[in-house]
């Protein structure tokens, strides 16, 4: 399985390098602007970094799906489906690689922000001042008050949702290439089905969450159950996709 994952990483390594280089250049610009005491330009660099991060997050998710689509539809599928490994291992490797790439991209973000923090610390030698500066940027750029606990919760929820979006996408593509025969309406149907499943899963989740809050279950426990719920859905989608590949896929 590790070997399968190794090749999954190889397929998508280039985009991570590009993201890292772009963010690296912006960090450099941020550093220079700080040295030159041009705080406004430094804030612009930081704003640009957040923008690149958001676009890259979307791209990384889409890239996993595009690569999976190629693995199902083009001749390159032979490379994957001729190897003597079960569909559960092949898809498992793909999904773990996709999740790790999300982690890896987030790690690039954390390193980027860490570097910015270090640059700022080197200049002011004051964490409190740095956090105030960050709050200021958020207030000025996004007109919002910053709460770091809330930031952590938002980031973890984003990660869970990000993983769910990718795994649901993999399931939809598998369905499109197995059960739904490749007709004129196949792509449209798979998009409709994707949206429907997304909506249904979110609705059930919201119902469970509301129920837990009504039952006076603490916020932390409710959040943990929320994460478990998405994990269960992800595993169910994985099993369904691997089963479809095993029984129905022709490449």
């Amino acid at each position: 399985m590790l070997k399968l994952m190794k090749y999954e990483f190889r397929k998508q390594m280039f985009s991570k390098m590009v993201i890292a280089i772009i963010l690296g250049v912006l960090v450099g610009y941020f550093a220079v602007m700080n040295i030159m005491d041009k705080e406004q330009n430094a804030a612009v660099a930081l704003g640009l970094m957040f923008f690149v991060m958001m676009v890259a997050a979307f791209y990384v998710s889409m890239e996993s799906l595009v690569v999976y689509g190629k693995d199902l539809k083009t001749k390159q599928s032979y490379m994957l489906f001729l190897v003597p490994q079960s569909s559960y291992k092949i898809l498992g490797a793909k999904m773990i690689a996709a999740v790790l790439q999300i982690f890896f991209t987030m790690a690039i973000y954390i390193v980027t922000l860490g570097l910015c923090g270090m640059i700022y610390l080197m200049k002011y030698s004051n964490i409190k001042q740095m956090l105030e500066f960050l709050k200021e940027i958020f207030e000025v750029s996004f007109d919002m008050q910053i709460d770091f606990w809330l930031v952590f919760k938002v980031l973890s929820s984003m990660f869970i949702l990000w993983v769910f979006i990718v795994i649901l996408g993999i399931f939809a593509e598998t369905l499109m290439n197995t059960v739904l025969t490749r007709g004129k309406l196949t792509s449209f149907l798979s998009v409709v089905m994707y949206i429907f499943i997304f909506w249904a899963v979110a609705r059930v989740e919201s119902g469970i969450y509301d129920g837990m809050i009504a039952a006076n279950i603490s916020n932390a426990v409710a959040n943990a159950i929320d994460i478990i719920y998405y994990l269960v859905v992800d595993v169910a989608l994985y099993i369904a996709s691997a089963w479809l590949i095993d029984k129905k896929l022709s490449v």
Partner: protein
Amino acid sequence: MLECSNLKKVYLNKTAVEDISLTLEKGRIYALLGPNGSGKTTFMKMISGLVKPTHGTIEYEGMPIGVQSKKDIAYMSTEPFFYSFMTVESVGKYYKDFFEDFDEDKYVKLIGEMELNMKDKVNKLSSGMSAKLKIAATMARNAKLYLLDEPLNGIDIIAREKIITTILNAASDDSTIVISTHLVDELEAVIDSVVFIKDGKSVIYGDAEQIREQRGKSIVELYKEIYG
């Protein structure tokens, strides 16, 4: 070694394989003959596990097609299929990573014989070079069953002899080779058995020598008679 019963494959409203039932025996070289679109590729892909039959069964050594059969069966498609980021060298590493029967030394030797360069990127290779790389990677496996889909396609006349020799070198009492082709005359001398496929059905199937004797015709002449 391999038994197919009433194989059928339907894509939407097109029937690629209508009804094929045959048995492949150990140590023989089979020619799978038929024009383009006759169902040869789909049939091979079903044996290699890439395509699921709509109907019928395939048993390899008494087991359905799956992980175990993929360990023993080496399929070479007619089109290039390597990842575009790969080099000739990394194709070998990929095969070594996934196929226990892959012989690295044999691969290096075959790459040399095919006049390929280990550092060349696969997406920069000409169609002829690409075809040679497919052959080298597939034949470097010590597989029990080789399925070669149009192995001479895109190969120049000079190199064809080398390819045929490479294929014959893999032939042994333990291994079976199935070659799909429409270049019948180049393979007539080396094949043991023949399967003629027409419109997704096997129309003639058996020992090549017996067929020649019974029909009083060479395989090439029969080919022209059936598909002409």
